[in-house]
């Protein structure tokens, strides 16, 4: 172990005419990893990719790749592949000429270049004999060409900016699997931007969650799901995402629900057990798939049953607890009797967040 990661980003900052797009951003990526950059629209994901590829200059901070400082290196000397959301295939060149472009720049000619173009096109599942112009291809095919063009130069890093967002839902599922397989075959260190959490969880080794130019959490998908660092992350990871129930500690053993109703939970979920002082406000993350409905019993949360959505194997049950709305995911066969019921969270230490800062409250022992 050298202790120095393959890609190392340190205190990167970038502002556009006063508007901060990246703020003190740190990220380490191991060689051969597949990292997803996840965050809502406008949080600085594309800005980060442009800085990594050298198309945009950061205001401050450093980038090291394979041990060398590349912060001020011009894009054409970085050897970093970049795939744009709109693919940006050169419209005046044929498919093969597009893929060959980067090889020309490297001075690779003749038979060797032909072989590398074939290899790249086969790698993304396209027929190397395809003699067409980009405008004559479907969106999915254009995207494959864009990826082939980026990997033909055997980049040190492959950056994908929302590669799946222009594809329809069915194709998206298929291509995200193919992207992962392509990565596993080539071993190219890959960073993929997305604002679809399911996509990030399904493909990446590690997910970097961003919000407003900052890195909130950087973890493997399971860790992100189990231990979200903030209420924001808990509220958007998972399908559907966790419910965030606003609670105020009434005393050591009970909570006040929004709307003023009382909830006396199981011992594991009480304010005292979780280190919340009386009067403090917090958010409890309740995962839809961990909740159960039942008739009266100790520890239950009184709810009114609302709409029920059938999704195939499961059903999504929307309920109201006081003035808060929650969603449960139950097996499709479960009978749900209304109009009121009791909701039972799992008996284990809950995910609690400070209502003001959104930060995770420390788990007591």
């Amino acid at each position, binding site marked *: 172990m050298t202790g120095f990661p393959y890609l190392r980003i340190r205190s990167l900052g970038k502002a556009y005419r006063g508007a901060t797009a990246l703020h003190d951003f740190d990220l380490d990526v191991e060689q051969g990893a597949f990292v997803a950059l996840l965050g809502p629209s406008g949080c600085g994901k594309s800005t980060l990719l*442009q800085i990594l*590829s*050298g*198309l945009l200059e950061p205001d401050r901070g450093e980038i090291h790749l394979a041990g060398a400082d590349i912060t001020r290196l*011009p*894009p*054409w*000397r*970085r*050897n*970093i*592949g*970049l795939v*744009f959301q*709109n693919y*940006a295939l*050169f*419209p*005046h*060149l044929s498919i093969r*000429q597009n893929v060959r*472009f*980067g090889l020309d*720049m*490297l001075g690779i000619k003749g038979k060797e270049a032909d072989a590398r173009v074939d290899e790249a096109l086969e790698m993304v599942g396209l027929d190397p004999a395809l003699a067409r112009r980009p405008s004559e291809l479907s969106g999915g095919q254009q995207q494959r060409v864009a990826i082939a*063009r*980026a990997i033909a*130069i055997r980049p040190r890093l492959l950056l994908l900016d929302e590669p799946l967002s222009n594809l329809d839902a069915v194709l998206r599922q298929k291509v995200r699997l193919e992207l992962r397989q392509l990565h596993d075959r080539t071993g190219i260190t890959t960073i993929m931007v997305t604002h679809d959490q399911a996509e990030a969880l399904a493909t990446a080794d590690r997910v970097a969650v961003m919000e407003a130019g900052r890195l909130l959490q950087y973890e493997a998908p399971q860790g992100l799901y189990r231990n979200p660092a903030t209420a924001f992350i808990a509220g958007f990871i998972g399908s559907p995402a966790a419910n965030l129930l606003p609670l105020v500690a009434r005393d050591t053993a009970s909570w006040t629900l929004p709307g003023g109703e009382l909830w006396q939970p199981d011992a594991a979920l009480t304010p005292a057990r979780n280190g919340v002082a009386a009067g403090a406000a917090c958010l409890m993350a309740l995962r839809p798939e961990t909740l159960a409905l039942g008739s009266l019993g100790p520890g239950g949360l009184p709810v009114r049953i609302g709409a029920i959505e059938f999704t195939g194997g499961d059903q999504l049950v929307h309920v109201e607890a006081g003035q808060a709305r929650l969603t449960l995911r139950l097996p499709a066969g479960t009978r749900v009797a209304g109009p009121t019921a009791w909701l039972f969270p799992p008996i284990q230490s809950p995910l609690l967040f400070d209502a003001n800062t959104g930060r995770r409250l420390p788990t007591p022992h």
Partner: protein
Amino acid sequence: MNQIPDIKPHTTAMLVGPAAALMFGVFVLPFLFLLVLSFWSQVPGSLQFDTYLTVLNYARIFGDSYYLGGLWTTLWLSGLVTVICLLLAMPLARWIVLRAGPAKGLLIGLSILPLVCGALLPTLGLVNLLSPLGFINGALKSLGLIQSSLPLLGNITGVAIGLVQAFLPLMILPLITTMERLPQEYEKAAMSLGARRLVVWQRIILPLLLPGIVAGSLLVFCASLTAFVTPQVLGQGKVVTFASLAYQQAALVLDWPFASALAIVMLIFLGLAGMLGALVTRKFGKAS
């Protein structure tokens, strides 16, 4: 659903008719007359036409070094003006499209100003700037950079300056339109694939801007080829262009058949320029 209403043949005729009649009356007929006229000749010493068909007018143009010289001057002057406009307009248009931000509309408006104020006013303004006692010579002299006035009026230099000033907008507008439809991602993708700026220009930007370059060059070239007021005023009669020759023959010498032949030759060169433009677009736009 909106549907296109059925258009009956007689409706079509009524819609297209007036414009077609006007075009025929004021454009096609005079043109045909011009063509026929160019093969007639003037009866010496009178205003009568000799309607016997002859190619003598054309033989005179291509046999006399005065007219050939005028033709040659006009052609290379137009070519020079086109190249200068292209070199000036390219960075300007790119800057307006990429960097001007909120001032873009204003800048486009300013850059097409020469088009809307006609040929005469700006040209007369230029006389003040360029004359031996004008602003430019005065400024250079008072700075001690020159001893005697630079000859900027009454020669090719002055005419070229005037034509560039007048027709620059014809280059800027098509370039801006083409550039605006060109996403920045093409350049960025090329750079990330290892292309330096010069290569990006050669292999990505210029080929994709070609339609705009051809359109702008054609407009400027044709406008310069047929320009009359600017060469006349800034050339002060000392620069012989084809349009001024035709004017001399039509309005002063009153040899209409010969003036017509001059005009037809000019039209042929306009046609050739158009064909060259189409050829360039076909060759470099589709192939490669």
